[in-house]
């Protein structure tokens, strides 16, 4: 049956095209699910088109939207669409994508408060422009009734706006006063309220000066500073949340009837059976029920050598299963795992940070009482000089309060932190703490962890030359069938040298022990020393035994992480002491220290020893920067003056560190100290500039010569100088 022919085919076509382009698939009638994907490499217009276009063509996808600022895609889709499949699809067409746990991302709250600040700032900006226009007329000589009219109009505009836009300051000042403390917002609120009230009084009495413009301008500039500060923190927070959301915790639960289901870790209960496949991270604490394998504990203890795991052995969450599938009886899951308990302990131990007073707080401590005393003494002095003229005295006191330029002080720190965190983000460093730059600038001693921080945690065969081609060919043939990291290292080394694998038969992997096969009629084995009956050596090694011949050892060293040598060299060049503290065996630690030129190294350190070492450095009066990734470093990271961890670290570790390295390379660390020193210098300069303005303006106000025009000039000039100075921030030396 043919479709009826339309009188206007083009109209129909346009209609259909618009429908499909705009809305696309409308769903199967059920409720949609929301999927978020992280797109770390998206940066251009083509990426938006590519990602959105190709996602919308997939079955079940209703809409897709890319946010380039957050490097994220939000997708509405039917319930049976698997997030992982979408991520894999995008990665396969060239846009690297990772699934995000939507439960962890709590962006709505920060977005709301940021939008709230922006709205208050917009309203204040609108009011400021209108009042300024009216004020220009007054400054240029409006008199009598005209001046009064202009003052009344200014009052009508600025009073409601100051009351609305100034709320963040009033609230903060109120809470701080209730706690019997003075913060920066107390003089600000006082200046706003006093300036508004005296201006109304002056206007009612046909006075010459009204400070409506000053009050509203102060509100606008201070809100600008606060918005900058808020945005910087919100971006850092959302990036940090994203790192946490990347680890979507899933586990394979084995049911009573032997079937398996994939569930979220939160749903796992004590006593459940969980299967951990080779290559996966153990999601829970528990005892091995069935199966044999080796596990990699390096993130938890710093040991680079894999450990045997068989029935009866206890495993902790965070370890990585290497060779064989394991069936684990859950002893603790979710918040009760040793991993989480460790994180809680660290949160309690985190005291040194709380003791640090930021430069802004130090300045506020000096500034607030000084301003109040100045204004009050100006009031009293003029009351005495003018023999009881309260109106004149209050006018001068208010002029003093306004002209002391709290807006330059309010902008001094946020302008610099915005500039520095943007710069660091571009270099691949995420600033999580607001005072991290200031603390980083004081650092004079750097402590590194070894496994996973200075090294990649990926072994490399280092005694290649000691072996006969025959041994290598057999080892290659055995190693090819395994995904064990040491086996993979042998395969890589042998293939680089062009070795051809020997012909072996009946190869089988014995999980937890090694690989066995038949070669030229004799049994050949590659694996752990005990399994082969060989004597182990004190190195990361695996052993090859051919027939009855004595076993030979293949030894490995850890590859240095990209940029590790440059970072250490740059830090040493800047005159800093560098120490290596590791939980690994002495030989491995010594080797890495020697390769990087670190003289001070300590091996076999337990987590407590690491903390003790950091505390000892602090007792000597040193400011320690700790760089580490393992769970065993977590307490030391919290104890240090400032801490950095790579993105590959466990979540518990990233939580306590001030800065997270987003890229693979360690190189940015070297420059970051210089950058933060430059930033701290700018902050100090900005305080100096504000103080300089005050030195000129305050005496003028005190002798009673400050007009609203002078206040407006001083305020805008100082704010602009401070912002421009922040932009002079220098990068790497």
């Amino acid at each position: 049956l043919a479709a009826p022919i339309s009188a206007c085919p083009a109209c129909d076509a346009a209609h259909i095209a618009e429908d499909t382009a705009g809305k696309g698939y409308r769903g199967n009638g059920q409720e949609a699910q929301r999927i978020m994907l992280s797109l770390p490499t998206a940066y251009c217009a083509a990426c938006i088109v590519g990602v959105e276009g190709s996602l919308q063509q997939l079955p079940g996808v209703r809409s897709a939207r890319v946010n380039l600022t957050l490097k994220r895609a939000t997708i509405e889709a039917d319930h049976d669409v698997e997030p992982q499949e979408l991520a894999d699809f995008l990665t396969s067409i060239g846009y690297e994508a990772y699934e995000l746990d939507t439960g962890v991302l709590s962006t709505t709250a920060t977005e709301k408060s940021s939008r709230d600040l922006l709205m208050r700032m917009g309203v204040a900006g609108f009011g400021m422009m209108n009042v300024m226009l009216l004020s220009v007329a007054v400054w240029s000589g409006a008199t009598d009734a005209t001046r009064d009219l202009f003052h009344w109009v200014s009052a009508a505009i600025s009073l409601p706006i100051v009351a609305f836009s100034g709320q963040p300051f009033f609230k903060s000042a109120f809470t701080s006063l209730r706690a019997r403390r003075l913060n920066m917002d107390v003089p600000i609120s006082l200046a706003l309220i006093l300036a508004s009230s005296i201006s109304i009084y002056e206007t009612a009495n046909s006075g010459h000066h009204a400070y409506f413009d000053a009050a509203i301008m102060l509100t606008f500039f201070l809100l600008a500073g606060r918005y900058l500060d808020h945005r910087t923190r919100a971006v850092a927070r959302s990036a940090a949340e994203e790192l946490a959301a990347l680890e979507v915790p899933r586990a394979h639960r084995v049911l009573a009837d032997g079937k398996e289901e994939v569930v979220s870790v939160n749903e796992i209960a004590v006593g459940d059976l969980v299967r951990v496949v080779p290559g996966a991270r153990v999601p829970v604490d528990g005892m091995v029920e069935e199966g044999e394998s080796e596990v990699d504990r390096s993130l938890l203890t710093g040991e680079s050598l894999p450990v045997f795991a068989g029935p009866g052995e206890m495993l902790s969450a965070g370890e990585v299963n290497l060779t064989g599938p394991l069936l684990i009886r859950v002893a603790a899951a979710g918040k009760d795992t040793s991993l989480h308990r460790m994180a809680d302990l660290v949160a309690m131990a985190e005291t040194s940070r709380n003791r640090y007073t930021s430069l802004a707080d130090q300045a506020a401590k000096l500034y607030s009482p000084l301003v109040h005393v100045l204004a009050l003494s100006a009031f009293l002095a003029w009351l005495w000089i003018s023999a009881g003229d309260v109106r004149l005295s209050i006018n001068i006191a208010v002029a003093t309060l306004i002209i002391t330029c709290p807006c330059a002080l309010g902008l001094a720190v946020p302008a610099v932190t915005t500039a520095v965190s943007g710069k660091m983000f571009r270099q691949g460093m995420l600033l999580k703490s607001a005072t991290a730059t200031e603390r980083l600038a004081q650092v004079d001693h750097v402590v590194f962890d070894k496994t996973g921080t200075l090294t990649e945690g990926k072994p490399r065969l280092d005694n290649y030359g000691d072996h006969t081609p025959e041994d290598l060919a057999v080892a290659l043939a055995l190693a090819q069938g395994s995904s064990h990291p040491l086996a993979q290292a042998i395969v890589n080394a042998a293939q680089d040298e062009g070795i051809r694998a020997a012909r072996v038969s009946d190869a089988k992997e014995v999980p937890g022990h090694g690989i066995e096969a038949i070669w030229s009629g004799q049994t050949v084995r590659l694996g752990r020393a005990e399994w082969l009956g060989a004597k182990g050596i004190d190195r990361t090694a695996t052993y090859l035994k051919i027939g009855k011949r004595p076993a030979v050892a293949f030894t490995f060293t850890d590859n240095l992480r990209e940029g590790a040598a440059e970072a250490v060299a740059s830090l040493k060049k800047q005159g800093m002491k560098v120490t290596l503290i590791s939980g690994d065996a002495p030989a491995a630690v010594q080797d890495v220290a020697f390769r990087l030129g670190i003289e001070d190294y300590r091996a076999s350190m337990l987590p407590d020893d690491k903390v003790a070492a950091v505390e000892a450095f602090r007792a000597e009066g040193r400011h320690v920067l700790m760089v580490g990734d393992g769970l065993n470093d977590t307490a030391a990271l919290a104890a240090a003056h400032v801490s950095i961890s790579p993105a590959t670290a466990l979540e518990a570790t990233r939580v306590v560190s001030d800065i997270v390295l987003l890229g693979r390379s360690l190189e940015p660390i070297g420059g970051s100290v210089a950058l933060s020193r430059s930033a701290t210098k700018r902050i100090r300069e900005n305080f100096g500039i504000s103080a300089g303005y005050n030195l000129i303006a305050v005496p003028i106000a005190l002798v009673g010569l400050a007009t609203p025009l002078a206040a407006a000039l001083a305020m805008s000039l100082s704010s602009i100088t401070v912002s421009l100075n922040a932009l002079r921030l220098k990068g790497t030396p």
Partner: protein
Amino acid sequence: VNVLVYLIPISILLGGFGLAAFFWTLKTQQYDDPEGDAHRILRDEWDDAPPKD
């Protein structure tokens, strides 16, 4: 000087239009993805408004 009687309300009204426009941009989430929007405007394809939620 009498001209002020209607010029001042007019100027405030015009400013009010600007303020209303600003509220509208806030409400339609136009500050959420400044970087993406800078690129989107250069595309040929017709683009939907930011998602409302």
